[in-house]
């Protein structure tokens, strides 16, 4: 009897493993039933995720406040004098202002390039079960979003629409290790391939061995055929260090993405772009140096020194 039970157990294990291998094979062969399962699940989950986002936003804001407590201590001292109702209104207002600022920035960038965009709220970030970098937004095919559309925010490129569901869409971030984008250096025609590294840092490989780049160079998206997946001219990042290895065929460099992928609230999906390449018009302005106050002291020596004026006061 015991042996029979053991055999049944082994058989169950083998059946389960074969089933999972069968599923992997079906997925790798591109069977639509498998992708349909994921689409169906996401369609069912997206309303719950939207509710979750609404509920969790105040909680998240609270933790953000706690994290930045040290920096805003002086501000907090002033706020303590105000009543609780006003404080609560301020917290709500801060969240709305931040979203508004992100939205305004993205619309400014899109307006400059004459992109037709659709702004959406980030309702979920990639799970720990996956090593990929993704976000989910609360707009989908119902809003006109299609796969391979460029996603931007006020700083520049965020990523590309990977999968579209009815009410939501999955965005592959530019920081994802599998992300590759053709870029060109602003002000010149040097081109290269920028790869995500799982962090805010990316690696640029120039395509021409005669080209040279330097720290501080701005990278812009080179654009794709029919503007998909990349519209041209979108700011991507800035070169932070250049690798000048003697044996390398082409030059490589470390790049810092303009967008901060860990604090995404509102993003914009580029629905349509004009036929004219905006060239370097979207390059972000260099930050102005902070003026350092100087004090000039004019000393006029007296013609007839008196005995009392020899020492300093």
């Amino acid at each position: 009897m015991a042996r029979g039970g053991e055999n049944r157990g082994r058989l169950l294990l083998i059946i389960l493993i074969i089933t999972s291998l069968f599923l992997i094979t079906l997925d790798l062969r591109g069977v639509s039933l498998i992708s349909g399962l994921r689409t169906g699940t996401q369609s069912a989950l997206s309303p719950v995720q939207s509710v979750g986002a609404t509920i969790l936003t105040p909680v998240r804001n609270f933790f953000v406040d706690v994290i930045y407590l040290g920096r805003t201590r002086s501000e907090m001292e002033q706020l303590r004098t105000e009543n609780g109702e006003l404080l609560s209104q301020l917290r709500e207002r801060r969240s709305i202002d931040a979203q508004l600022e992100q939205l305004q920035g993205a619309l400014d960038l899109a307006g400059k390039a004459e992109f037709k965009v659709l702004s959406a709220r980030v309702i979920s970030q990639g799970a720990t079960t996956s090593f990929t970098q993704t976000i989910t937004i609360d707009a989908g095919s119902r809003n006109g979003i299609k796969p391979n559309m460029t996603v931007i925010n006020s700083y520049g490129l965020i990523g590309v629409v990977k999968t579209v569901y009815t009410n939501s869409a999955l965005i592959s971030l530019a920081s994802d290790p599998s992300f590759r984008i053709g870029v060109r250096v602003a002000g010149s025609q040097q081109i290269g391939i920028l790869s995500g590294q799982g962090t805010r840092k990316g690696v640029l490989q120039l395509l021409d061995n005669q080209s040279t780049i330097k720290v501080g160079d701005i990278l812009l998206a080179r654009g794709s055929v029919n503007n998909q997946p990349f519209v041209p001219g979108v700011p991507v990042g800035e070169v932070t260090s250049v690798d000048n290895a003697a044996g390398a065929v082409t030059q490589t460099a470390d790049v810092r993405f303009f967008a901060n992928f860990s604090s995404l609230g509102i993003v914009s999906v580029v629905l349509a772009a004009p036929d004219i390449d905006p060239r370097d018009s979207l390059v972000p302005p260099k930050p102005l140096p902070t003026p350092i106050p100087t004090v000039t002291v004019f000393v006029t020596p007296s013609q007839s020194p008196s005995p009392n004026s020899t020492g300093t006061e």
Partner: protein
Amino acid sequence: MSTRKISLTALLFILVYILQEAFITQLRIAGGGFSLFLIFALLWAALSSPNMGALTGFTAGFLIDLSQSTAGAFGQWTLVLIIVGFGISYFGLGYENVRLNPFTITFLVTVSVVVARVVYLLLSLLLGEDLGTFSSIATSLLVGLLWSAAVVPIAMPVVARAYDFINDTRSRL
């Protein structure tokens, strides 16, 4: 296994899955956070027999594969969790003391979370997927380990009580 047990277990798994997908993923916890659903599934498997552990792993893996945030091939997490679910329950069953000691089961589940992710990583490599730099993977695994070590002792009594209620057993965890 009675219809009551199957339906209650399925309901519980779906509830935790929704909690993970709709709420936990939005918390933006430092270092990528943790997967409550993965921890729950492995705790459940640790309390079960090896056959049930494998079945639990299959169900949990299938649900994770359904998630839109899972980038790998469909069935990859199913395969990983069948192996790890079977392994954790087999290991626990062989050593009765391990099953009944909260500290040991915390250790076992925490390590299993990391093992599951490493096995997933290896499968991804075999399937030719891009995984990123070694440092980002190592950081992700380390942070996942620390979060799991913090979450497992909190989740364990709840999961053990739910398991006892559904299976009419009485564990000493």
